[in-house]
């Protein structure tokens, strides 16, 4: 136990921090759960102050679960789950990928390129677009890996700033070569029907299938495969991993590429289902959502699916609140931030025990 010098001792006793050796998974879950409740309570209080009584909120949340709204939630959930996977895969090995938006943009651009240059037969067009999107996302993040290994550039800064490079490259295309000739709007021409992700029945979009496939693949990669076993050692103790013969460099590279591919696919899903064309804003705000989902799911791909769905519920509810109660979008983002902070502090409580000594 590490007991630093007393923080304060002014008659009331003193506060000490001990490092916990171990905590059962159940108690850890309880800590995360109660922090989540705490964060939600604060959010409710803020919304109440903004003029939305908790009961109205509850009825709005219940309304989300009607079939019509649920479809909207599932459409929203697909890209969220994919960016959640992208973030959690990278975070598992301590690579702080904040370039999800840039990777989504390149995923979208690569997919759109297949459409614009009319590559391959109609039957396999979507498959080709999806593969190109995954490749685009992976290449964009591997650029950062190169910068990190060759020039020791910090990946947090590199991934984050390359988002802007990707964004302006997208603008360059949309205001230039790929601009829609008919409308002269800064958008690409619409995708053809066979290039769009359609419904698979019950009004559910096939983008969700891609997300589910991603969850299964990432779950296999992390929990069952050999690379997944390596990643646990790489994140737990990289120096030790190297000494005992774990191929640290190679395993890291594959996981980061997978992370970029997931984000690229999220870009493809947004372009090919919701937007139906390359727009300026199909990647906006997804870095934060990806980090949030990875964080709440503690980087477990299977949990990402659940959390991604819940965040989609929050989004849709937020949209309703915006339309019917004039709550600004920033309010929804603030609630997200409050939840992140609440869960972050639970991490501290899991690692430390606070005691009051008299």
């Amino acid at each position, binding site marked *: 136990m590490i007991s630093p010098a007393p923080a304060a001792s002014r008659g009331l006793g003193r506060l000490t921090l001990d490092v916990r050796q171990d905590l059962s998974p159940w108690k850890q879950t309880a800590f995360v759960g109660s922090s989540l409740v705490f964060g939600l309570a604060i959010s409710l209080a803020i919304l109440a102050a903004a003029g939305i009584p908790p009961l109205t909120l509850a009825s709005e949340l219940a309304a989300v679960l009607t079939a019509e709204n649920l479809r909207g939630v599932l459409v929203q959930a697909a890209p969220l789950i994919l960016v959640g996977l992208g973030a959690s895969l990278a975070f598992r090995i301590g690579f702080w990928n904040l370039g999800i938006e840039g990777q989504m943009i390149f995923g979208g651009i690569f997919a759109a390129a297949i459409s614009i240059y009319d590559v391959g037969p109609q039957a396999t067009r979507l498959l080709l677009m999806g593969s190109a999107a995954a490749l685009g996302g992976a290449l964009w993040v591997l650029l950062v890996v190169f910068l990190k290994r060759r020039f020791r550039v910090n990946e947090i800064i590199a991934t984050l700033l390359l988002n802007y490079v990707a964004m302006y490259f997208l603008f360059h295309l949309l205001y230039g070569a790929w601009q829609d000739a008919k409308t002269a709007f800064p958008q690409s021409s619409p995708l053809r029907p066979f290039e769009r992700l359609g419904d698979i029945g019950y009004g559910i979009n096939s983008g969700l299938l891609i997300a589910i496939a991603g969850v299964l693949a990432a779950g296999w990669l992390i929990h069952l495969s050999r690379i997944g076993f390596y990643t646990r050692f790489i994140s737990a103790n990289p120096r030790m991993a190297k000494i*005992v*013969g774990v191929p640290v460099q190679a395993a890291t590279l594959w996981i980061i590429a997978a992370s970029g591919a997931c984000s690229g696919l999220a870009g493809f899903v947004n372009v090919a289902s919701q937007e139906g064309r390359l727009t300026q804003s199909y990647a906006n705000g997804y870095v934060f959502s990806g980090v949030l989902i990875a964080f709440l799911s503690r980087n477990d791909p299977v949990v990402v699916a659940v959390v991604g769905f819940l965040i989609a519920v929050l989004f849709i509810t937020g949209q309703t609140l915006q339309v019917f109660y004039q709550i600004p979008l920033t309010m929804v983002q603030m609630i997200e931030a409050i939840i992140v902070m609440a869960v972050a502090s639970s991490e501290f409580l899991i690692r430390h025990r606070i005691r009051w000594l008299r």
Partner: protein
Amino acid sequence: MASALKLVGIRKSFDGALALDGASFESRAGEVHALLGENGAGKSSLMNVAAGLYAPDAGSISIDGVPIALSGPAAARQHGIGMVHQHFKLVKPFTVAENVLLANPRPHFASGIRNIRAAIEKQVGELKFSIDPDRRIETMTVAEQQQVEIVKVLVGGAKILILDEPTAVLTDAEAVGLLEIVQRLARSGTAVVLVTHKLQDVKRFADAVTIMRGGKTVATLDPRKSSAEELTELTVGQTLPLPVRTPHQGGPTKLNVGALCYTRGDGRTMLNNTSFHIRAGEIYGIAGVSGNGQAELAEALIGAIEPSSGEIWLDGTGDISRASQAKRREAAIAAIPADRYTYALAGSLPISDNLAVAQIRSGRYGGLIKLDRAAMRRDAATAVKDYDVQGVRSVGQKASLLSGGNAQKLVIAREFSRQPQVVVAHSPSRGLDARACAAVHQRLIAARERGAAIVLISEDLDEVLSLSDRIGVMSRGAIVGEFERPADRQAIGRAMVDHG
């Protein structure tokens, strides 16, 4: 002369490991009092208690004969205790005056800085130092930074000055210069405590010496009246009975280390043409005062660092000094590093994973697609039983929950699971109790009997003497002497310090 600092019966343990076991110490004003001992003897821990950094579990502290309780470093400073740590506590982008002000706060910054600058200049003049209060720390040499540390403590009004291994970072000439100044400081009435493991410094500059071993203070004497042999013996302890083993057969050379060189990131040369060879069925012990390149040699052998030149030649494989870990594993090199939780175990992962990780590549636990967790658990249960790892409730529990000795057994179980040809063991019994220590030694002897070549790097001379067939003494990154078994303990001790 009056007692300045007195510590009686100090005990301190960290997470169950006893660092100080009833240590006592007394220094007087006007004296340089050396605290001598090997690495891990508890010297720094004892002085950290005196400086208010560690709260002792038991024992008492008194200053000038008055018992006191220290609530923290600030309280120690108020009582006139100042400590210069081995690793300097300076803010690099700040100037000298700003650093001194930070440690000795004044109510107002502008007048404080003026006030501090005057105080620095006064101290610098008295000590005949050469530091400018307005220079930034990052532009100064290590020796100059150390002067800043000393001035910082003296400006705070320290009457008791503790220097923790002050000469470790200095050249010989700088060290002599510093110790002469320290001696002068003592003559003017300061009580100086010199924490060191260098016998020569003690003989030359100390008025009294207290020797520590295993968390206890074993003797206090006058260094001028005691011989170097006497001090060495007290520091390293008495010879223990040796374990039974067969005489060495003298097999073919298995490992040859040739002219290995390594320069650390900060420019210090840690390995300077290190050369030795080991035959099959031989334990080659490497003795030396810590910090003479042993850690770097072990890291080069296990592949944690890449040497700048030289070779590590292995029978049947060739030079492995730059080989990949996979190739080293193939060559059956077992690594038992000194720092278990940095180089050998992932504490947050299960015992079974820690055991299996070295053999994942071989396909023993399934292919790329799916791992065979049941086989991992089965093998782990067997290994835990065979190697007598205690305190295992399930092989799924975290490795960090094991005690030091059992964690070490776990490392050995993994490393020995494939009949190693070469074993690199660095302080393999550090922090272990007698029983665990004996078990580790027994495993090393067993590997020797099987024909493996074993490098045993240890700061514990007893361990080296009792296990080794030959002993190389390491000093300043090179092997400066070799001794055949049975080696003369005093001769080795002299070789260690003569070059140190």
